[in-house]
């Protein structure tokens, strides 16, 4: 079971993500955005950062990277695909998740711990969590304000105290099948009590376990 952690030019959370996945026992490798063959992988994470500098719109240019054809294939095959922060924005731009992310309500970058509540455990990211469970996870974004005009998203994690104006308080949403998830806070940053919280571990573990399920 191996996770592809995709690196676009400007991605910056890739090493943190690999570090945590490995610490939790998963195999994980960095994959450059020009890669065209991910057949050796069973799941993918699009980590946080500023792909292509977030120029034009967050995630807009990254969506055209060669590697994205493979991500689309994996998603269609039911493999777990998770976008964290900037990765979430890429998944929306690529149409793998509905909606879009716009500037935070207060027009400021927000880097701080937030509380989220698990509202749906049917996704690859929340599979190991308990409904109603509260998690403390760092948020780190400027464009974290989720919108889905003419629709209501499948929210899997909701902010307890919405910091950025997201529709339905969405902190993470999933596709219908539950195998593609976008999450705005950073679960990999909540993986060590020394750094303030280890509540993200249950999410990363859920993701890792889902790889095996989807494979079986």
């Amino acid at each position, binding site marked *: 079971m191996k996770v592809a952690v995709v690196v676009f*030019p*400007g991605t*910056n*959370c890739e*090493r*943190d993500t690999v*570090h*945590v996945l490995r610490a939790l026992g998963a195999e994980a490798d960095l994959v450059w955005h020009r890669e065209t063959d991910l057949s050796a992988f069973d799941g993918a994470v699009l980590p946080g*950062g*500023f792909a*292509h*500098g*977030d*120029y034009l719109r967050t995630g807009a240019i990254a969506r055209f990277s060669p590697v994205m054809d493979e991500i689309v294939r994996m998603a269609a095959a039911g493999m777990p695909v998770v976008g964290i922060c900037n990765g979430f924005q890429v998944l929306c731009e690529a149409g793998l998740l509905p909606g879009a992310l716009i500037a935070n309500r207060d027009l*400021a*970058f*927000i*880097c*701080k711990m937030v509380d989220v509540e698990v509202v749906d455990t049917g996704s690859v990211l929340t599979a190991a969590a308990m409904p109603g469970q509260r998690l403390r996870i*760092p948020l*780190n974004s*400027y464009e974290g304000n989720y919108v889905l005009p003419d629709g209501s998203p499948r929210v899997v994690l909701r902010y307890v105290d919405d910091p950025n104006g997201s529709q339905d308080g969405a902190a993470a949403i999933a596709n219908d099948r539950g195998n593609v998830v976008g999450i705005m806070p*950073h679960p*990999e*940053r909540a*993986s*060590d009590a*020394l*750094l*303030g919280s280890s509540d993200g571990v249950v999410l990363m573990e859920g993701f890792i376990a889902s790889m095996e399920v989807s494979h079986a």
Partner: protein
Amino acid sequence: MPDVSLAPEEDAFVPDPDANREAVYRLLGMSDDEYRSVCEILGREPRPAELAMYSVMWSEHCSYKSSRSHLKRFPTDAPWVVVGPGENAGVVDIGDGWLAALRIESHNHPSYVEPYQGAATGVGGILRDVFTMGARPVALWDQIRFGPLDQSKNRYLFGGVVAGIAGYGNAVGVPTVGGEVDFAECYSGNPLVNVMCLGVLQRDQLVLGTAGTDGAVAILLGRATGRDGIGGASVLASASFEEASEAKRPSVQVGDPFEEKKLIEACLELYEKGLVLGVQDLGAAGLSCATSEPAARAGMGMDVDLSSVHVRESGMSAPELLMSESQERMMAFVDPSEVDEVLAVARHWEIDASVVGTVKAGGMLRVFHDGSLVAELPAASLSEDAPLYHRPLGEPHWMEDIWAKTLTFVIRPGLAEALMKLLDDPSIASKAWVYNQYDHMLFLNTVIPPGNDGSLIRVGNTNKALAVSTDGNGRLCYLDPRRGGGRLVYEAALNVAMTGARPLALVDNLNFGNPEKPEVMWQFRESIEGISEACERLGIPVVGGNVSFYNETDGVDIYPTPVVGLLGLVDPMPESPPRLDRIEEGMSLWRFGPEWAINLAGSAFEKITFAHVGGRPSAPDPTMAKACIEMATRLVNELGIPALHDISDGGMAIAASEMAIGSGQGVRLEFTDWRHLFSEDPHRFLAAVPDELSETVGALAVEVGIPAARIGSFGGDEIAFEQGGIRAVVALDAATETYKNAIPHRMSH
């Protein structure tokens, strides 16, 4: 010198050199004497490209011509220093093959012209200084100062600068893990924006800014060159700044953190593969500096072809190409056999690269443009022959007066009221509005985050952690630059010690007024003296720094504002590093350090409650400083004390309140003389001590030789100061609200 015939140049920037030489070199900020020296060096009149190079390289900003003679005073040696001042960043050995690189820089004037881009490009520049050394940048700190927030112009500058630091730092992917913010009237027309960067590297990856050997190839990497900030170095940073002088504004540099991120990764790959002989970043003075300095360091010369430089705009003249300060560029010097591989690495990371020169023996720098030779000069003359000024200095006539201007208190002021007023002052209040805009968590190493005294950063997969504290205090240095300078070092060292770390090295950023005024030069010399003495006493080498002069508006100088950044090492990292949020109900509050602190000169209390700045601040006491440092490190490493906090801005009253606010636990504190509550006398700190450790802590204090006393306890929902029957009380909720909202409230208008 051979008699070369230089091609006449069509030149937009230097209009007609022959007809109007004097006007031209003056426009470029050069004095008559300096111009004569250039003529002597060359044995003839300089051509436009040459004049451009000398003018930027000999500007105050690049040549340190007013400060060099004083900077020699700093102690710079210690067994663990690998690279001292003079290179792009200082480098120290932190054991087991690991090195740490450190550097601080100012971007004051550009940030006044355009706060967002000025601050952003400041971050970009300091990062390049650090990854030029072979290090991966792991953390940033910012030290910023503005006029009071009741003026909209200051709010605009403050908001823009913070957004710029966030915009660049977050996107480039280096966490900003601490810093300082201060507000005072003197910074209204001249904000200070300093940024500091820490990098780590393995010993064998150290790279220096040298051009290597005869035949080495110079490759320019990164952003295309445009007419950005031309003359910025000399005109912006070296001339006085008057609000009216719009005409002086050259085009502003615009940062591109995305390009820098790619450049960092590309350079680190070049170092890892051992593909470079030396590297130099392009900052102020652009190509002029990035060709001449590495060549001079290597004792070499160089042929440079400006026509090969990849450009953003067409029709740039040779002087423009040489002076451009386009951001996100690096010059790599490589062996000819490795050029292809270097270009391949650049392609992989999707950055542009062009071969622009060849290193030559003999020491002459020859610059070609469109097939003609446009400059030929000794490479070393641009740095080594730079003018050196021994500017006159004299103690300001006002020193005696301000020392005599002390406040006398006939009755005790209302303590609760005073406390609330201090908590509501933006200089003292929570800086979360600032650091919550900065990604301070990236890399998963920020063990002690902003909001505590020093920050603590874990080093990769080792047991080591690096602590950093940055400190400045313009008011104190104005009242006594020598005492003030020394106290900054002691305060920073104590802050670092309170994370458990041992102080290791210091960088400084000297922000001062107009050096042509003897009073300013006196303040400058005194501050350096104070910093140096303290460093000597503590055995801390100065490994780098930066000078920013001409911080004045309409003839009024800023407070002398040296800022120090102190790096410490703790190995192994304490198991549970101290943090204010570890304080629990029932723990005792202890004070360490001198008991009788009653001097209020220079304190935030006098400034904020009485609008008074006067008197003479207390001198530091090296023996007590050392005792404090030893006590703090041992409390953390031997006893695992959960939280410590130094007594600085706002005195013990604020220190205790911050512990309460940071932990959500009320605090009760007994005092003897109310002035103890607000005095900022040095070498004092507070700690939260679990009861079972009381005896051990007491015994340790005796062993270390430091006064210590249990002065209160944590718990409840009040902040209370008590003395006999007197009780000054503030509800913890109200104090917390005021402290957290002071800046956000002001910024939402």
